[in-house]
């Protein structure tokens, strides 16, 4: 059991780094999304996610999924990677959640498995849910894969997020990796010193102690960061540097996003 707690946590930690690495390589490829101003990417892809939610018909959502797929291809994002990391996982989770809807939703029965009845409405609602989640997650994933995190954050300024929020998001992201690494090291050293299997209550104690040390280190670190910020001139009003200029290409891209979204919503009204 001690293995499983440490290892399952380590797996979660590994996910963070893998995702970051994948994003770095994909963001450097020369694809369609990568060619657009980051602000257009953020606004456009968020608009499409909104369109997914606003569409009321299955066909409209399916059309948006096709759009997402096309975007992935045009942006040199490996479809296989998307399938493995996104589509299959979402299908697993959402599928399990949507499955009972087949039987539980009242309406026109279309099939029967013994005494249990599958309704047409049940089929449609399950399909709608799964498609919506898949499409929305694809759009979000494309944004993050094709854009370096610092650009995603600065682009959020276009959505009128306050500067302090941007700074906090950036700092949090940066320190997540530090804390994950620290926590991992603590677990590793614990694992190497553990002989045999730890009882669950000992595991809990270890988890709490690791979290506790991490917490103290976090607070101490934040004190130092504050001093470091002050030392370099931070006086309370944070400044952010961005160097982007919108070109015709960007505006065309933005138009494309808005058109696709509006069409889907209109189709699916």
């Amino acid at each position, binding site marked *: 059991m001690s293995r*499983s*707690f440490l290892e399952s*946590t380590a797996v*979660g*930690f590994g996910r*963070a780094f893998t995702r970051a690495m994948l994003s770095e390589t994909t963001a450097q490829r020369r694809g369609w999304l990568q060619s657009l101003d980051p602000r257009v990417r953020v606004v456009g892809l*968020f608009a499409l*996610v*909104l369109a997914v939610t606003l569409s*009321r018909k299955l066909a409209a959502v399916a059309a948006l999924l096709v759009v997402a797929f096309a975007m992935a291809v045009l942006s040199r994002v490996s479809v296989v990677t998307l399938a493995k990391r*996104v589509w299959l996982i*979402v299908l697993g989770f959402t599928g399990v959640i*949507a499955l*009972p*809807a087949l039987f*539980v*939703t*009242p*309406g026109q029965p279309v099939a029967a498995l013994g005494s249990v009845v599958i309704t*047409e*409405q*049940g089929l*449609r*609602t*399950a399909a*709608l*849910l799964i498609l*919506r*989640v898949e499409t*929305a*997650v694809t759009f*979000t994933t494309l944004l*993050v894969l094709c854009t370096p995190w610092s650009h995603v954050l600065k682009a959020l300024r276009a959505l009128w997020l*306050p500067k*302090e929020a941007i*700074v*906090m998001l950036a700092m*949090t*992201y940066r*320190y*997540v990796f530090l*804390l*994950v690494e620290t926590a991992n090291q603590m677990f590793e050293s614990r694992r190497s010193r553990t002989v045999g299997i730890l009882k*669950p*209550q000992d595991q*809990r104690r270890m988890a*709490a*102690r690791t*979290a*506790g*040390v991490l*917490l*103290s280190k*976090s*607070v101490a*670190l934040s*004190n130092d960061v*504050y001093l470091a*910020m002050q030392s370099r001139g931070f006086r*309370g009003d944070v400044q952010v540097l961005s160097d982007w200029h919108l070109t015709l290409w960007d505006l065309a891209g933005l138009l494309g996003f808005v058109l696709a979204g509006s069409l889907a919503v209109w189709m699916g009204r």
Partner: protein
Amino acid sequence: MHIPDGYLSPSTCGVLYVGAATGWYAALKRLRQALLSRVIPLISVFAAFSFVVMMFNLPLPGGTTGHALGVTIAAIVLGPSGAILALSIAIAIQALFFGDGGITTLGANCFNMAIVASLVAYASYRLIAAGAALASRRRVIAAAIAGYLAINVAALFAAVEFGIQPMLFHDASGTPLYAPYPLSIAVPAMMIGHLTFAGLAEAVISAGLVAYLQVADPGLLRPTSGLPSDATAEPATVPALPRLWIAIAVLMLLTPLGILAAGTAWGEWSPAQLARAASSASTASSPASAVPVGLQRLAKFWTAPFPAYAPTFVHSRGFGYLLSAMFGVGILLTVSLAARSWAARHRRKESSA
């Protein structure tokens, strides 16, 4: 508890975004009274910390595992305003970066897990630990209970948000457009998982961390302890207790009503439609939609006092469940408030005796 895109209708998302934005605004305003520049790194690092805590797969009593949120320890160390922001940031990064939780549902997720959870955690902790010494065992227990409550109340909110979707948002043929399960299924389904696993995980980690801090770094527990300290006065991030409870009560009441109102405003449903849907749902032949009898009776109890000329939807089952949930928590809050003021009066009598 992270709700992905597609489970909640646009108007629900909108309402919850407004709710979340109110919480963020209030929290930021409170923190600005303190030194924002000092607080930026503290909140950021704490957000990172809670992000990491959410990754821990904790072994629970009983042999299972569960994930905690870290919202309780955030509330205990930072106060509710800091916790609201720290958790919101962690949730936003999870949504954007990992796809855990959606973009349209970011407001809802922050509302449930950052705002409601922080307020409940903080208020419960303060209530139960009131007056206890910094190193006392009661604080550890208070943290555990606060964590358990916070997670479950947040889960209840999420369950209600899910559960009212099919009732309010479906197409002409009755197909639910978003989350497909009514309250009668959504609430038990969500609550079972959190009453057992997630709630316990949060309780375990919150208690464990408070116990650790009592020994290793008690200074971190002092600002929210409510104990008189010879150091500086309570920082501005910590609001007065009764106001918190009122805030929670108001939130709990406004949310469902807000959702209903918004649905009308958007024309997504009309009371007539809803009445039809409610009556058709009650005559559905599917055996799996049978509702626990107790819940049915409770629902009738709440809707019965409404006058006969009230809109039809008020008498529907769905609305009844909604009210049951909300009023139930409201009752709990009133009882706790009464208990606290009784306890305070009792203590005053003792000290003056």
